[in-house]
């Protein structure tokens, strides 16, 4: 297998607040291989968006990456640890936008309302020009505009000539997200991070955008980290899935394993509790007891133990389980599968 484009190892991002420390991301590890779509799924406060920001090194204070590695690999060159680069330095900026691009959550707010959509894409094109086109004359504004029009056409925006000069608030939600995708793809990145790209969009438009992303991914072979809380979207988009809860990875594995043979009690309960189209109407759903704890009131031991039906008293309440293999390509952090670890004191 080819080496991964991105390898996150034991990443820790903490927020130092007056009230205490929020461990937003607390020991997260996963890898993304070229051309692979890795889904990160979890509920609010699970740390998926912070993980995304950490990869791009745009965590805002009071948040700080306090540990772990983010290894980014370019072709056969040795990997770069992004956490070692200065977040505002030139090396990191050369990667941001050019090598790793972002599709943000709210296409409405993600564009500046006082600059045309085209302007903002042209800027990205010209900024990283030397990286996607090492030779040739400098890109003129006119040329960049033509390329933007082409990009718009390739993401299925009708009348691209006119749309380039539009402001984001003049476009519909679907068009805005397409424009955002065009911008993310403009510099031919190696890795795309999609942060809940369809959450703010209606379901029929969501289907269009998901199709577009799938199509572009197949065509360009871009690796994607797809972040969402929607298990349906993840099942349709990802090949490999990371399930997060309160800053920790509960389970990860191939999409088939996660959906058909989930091991971690959280994954299993979550899958059972979601309403689906394939049920008899008006039946009670199995539920997960309790609610997600406040980030400052994180439970001791395994973060899921207060809601877990299978919690082992005295073990899960005391110690944090490590992420360990439970199948050929599947890992879970749960003492149920690691009795040996649970036994050692």
């Amino acid at each position, binding site marked *: 297998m080819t080496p991964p484009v991105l390898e996150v190892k034991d990443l820790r991002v903490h927020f130092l607040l007056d009230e205490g420390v929020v461990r937003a991301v607390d020991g997260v590890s996963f890898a993304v291989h070229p051309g692979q779509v890795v889904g990160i799924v979890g509920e609010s406060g699970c740390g998926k968006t912070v993980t995304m920001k950490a990869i791009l090194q745009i965590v805002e204070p009071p948040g700080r990456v306090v540990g772990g590695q983010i290894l980014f690999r370019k072709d056969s060159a040795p990997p770069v640890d992004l956490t070692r680069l200065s977040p505002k330095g030139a090396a990191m900026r050369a990667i941001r936008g050019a090598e790793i691009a972002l599709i943000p959550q709210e296409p409405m707010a993600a564009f500046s309302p006082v600059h045309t959509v085209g302007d903002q894409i042209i800027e990205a094109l010209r900024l990283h020009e030397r990286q996607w086109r090492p030779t040739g004359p400098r890109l003129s504004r006119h040329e960049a505009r033509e390329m933007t029009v082409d990009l718009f056409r390739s993401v299925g925006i009708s009348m691209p000539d006119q749309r380039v000069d539009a402001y984001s608030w003049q476009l519909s939600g679907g068009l805005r997200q397409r424009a955002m995708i065009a911008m993310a793809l403009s510099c031919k990145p190696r890795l795309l991070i999609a942060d809940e790209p369809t959450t703010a969009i209606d379901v029929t438009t*969501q289907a269009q955008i*998901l199709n577009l992303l799938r199509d572009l991914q197949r065509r360009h072979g871009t690796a994607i980290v797809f972040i969402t809380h929607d298990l349906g979207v993840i*099942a*349709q988009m990802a090949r490999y899935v990371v399930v997060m809860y309160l800053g920790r990875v509960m389970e990860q594995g191939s999409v088939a394993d996660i959906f058909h043979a989930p091991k971690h009690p959280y994954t299993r309960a979550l899958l059972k509790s979601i*309403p689906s189209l394939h049920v008899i109407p*008006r039946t009670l759903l199995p539920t997960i007891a309790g609610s997600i704890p406040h980030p400052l009131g994180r439970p001791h031991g395994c973060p899921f133990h207060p809601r877990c039906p299978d919690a082992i008293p005295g073990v899960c309440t005391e110690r944090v389980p490590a992420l360990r293999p439970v199948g050929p390509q599947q890992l879970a952090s749960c003492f149920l599968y690691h009795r040996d670890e649970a036994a050692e004191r």
Partner: protein
Amino acid sequence: MSETATPWLLEVRHLRKSFPIRRGFSRRLVGEVRAVDDVSFTIREGETLGLVGESGCGKTTTARCILRAMTPTSGEMLFRAADGRIVDLSLLSRAELRPLRPQIQMIFQDPFGSLNPRMTIFDNVGEPLLVNGLRNRRARLERVAALLELTGLRAEYLHRFPHAFSGGQRQRIGIARALATEPRLVVADEPVSALDVSVQAQVLNLLLELQTRLSLTFLFVAHDLSVVKHISDRVAVMYVGQIVELATTEAIFRHPRHPYTAALMRAVPAPDPHTPSGDAALAGEVANPANPPPGCYFHPRCPFTTEVCRTERPFLRAIGAGHLVRCHRAEELALTGAC
């Protein structure tokens, strides 16, 4: 069928609500957004009618008109009051509405904005009781405590403020408040869409249980088809201010007759990697309710459009028992549902 035997509780006839578009200094009228455009349906006692559609389709406006949080432009909303009288909600003044308010209650979408942060849970839940005449504080305390127990909360939380609760708990408090006056009709506007996935099921289950226990009638507004399927007896699908299809949940999900309903179901991504969905996504975007297309509002996006769809506006008509659809070609199309 026994369902037809139960009397209706609410009958909405030709409901319209339009918002004027004003421009310029003189605020002159340049058009109108027909948010709700000739909507008719009935809700029988004890049933749940799901009202589903994408954003801007008019489902929330319909709900707010029924609650008289806004006044409809035209149409009738006949409500069978507890004393057996039939009143047209659309014609009532503020003062005339007040005695009816306890009978029609609402569950809100946003668990954070719907409780007054400056009042304790007791004051929030007890308010409908207080303003409707239960002045005795002790009696109110007992009643509120019972309501909290009913919705699965501990009675000792009574004197806490909303900021002490999680989203799911607040939604339970909101439900307790809605049930305080023993309403006959409960309008739930996206009650679970702001909640985390793991909490959604809890609240849906609670609503189902309460309905059986208290024989409640629900109008359930949502954009999420799977949620609607879980809770509704019958489902109405809206598109650009109009109902395009209305039938029993079973019928509409098994055999949708309107292309939009079918497309909506197909668009929902299945939480199963072996069931690919959404491949044949609907093209185009939702029509602008300020300037809808001629003919069938759905025709620019419909894969089955013919000439008649472009020119003639279809009516909502019965096709089979209790199955209404607004499509010229409903009979000839063979659409697949979700189950």
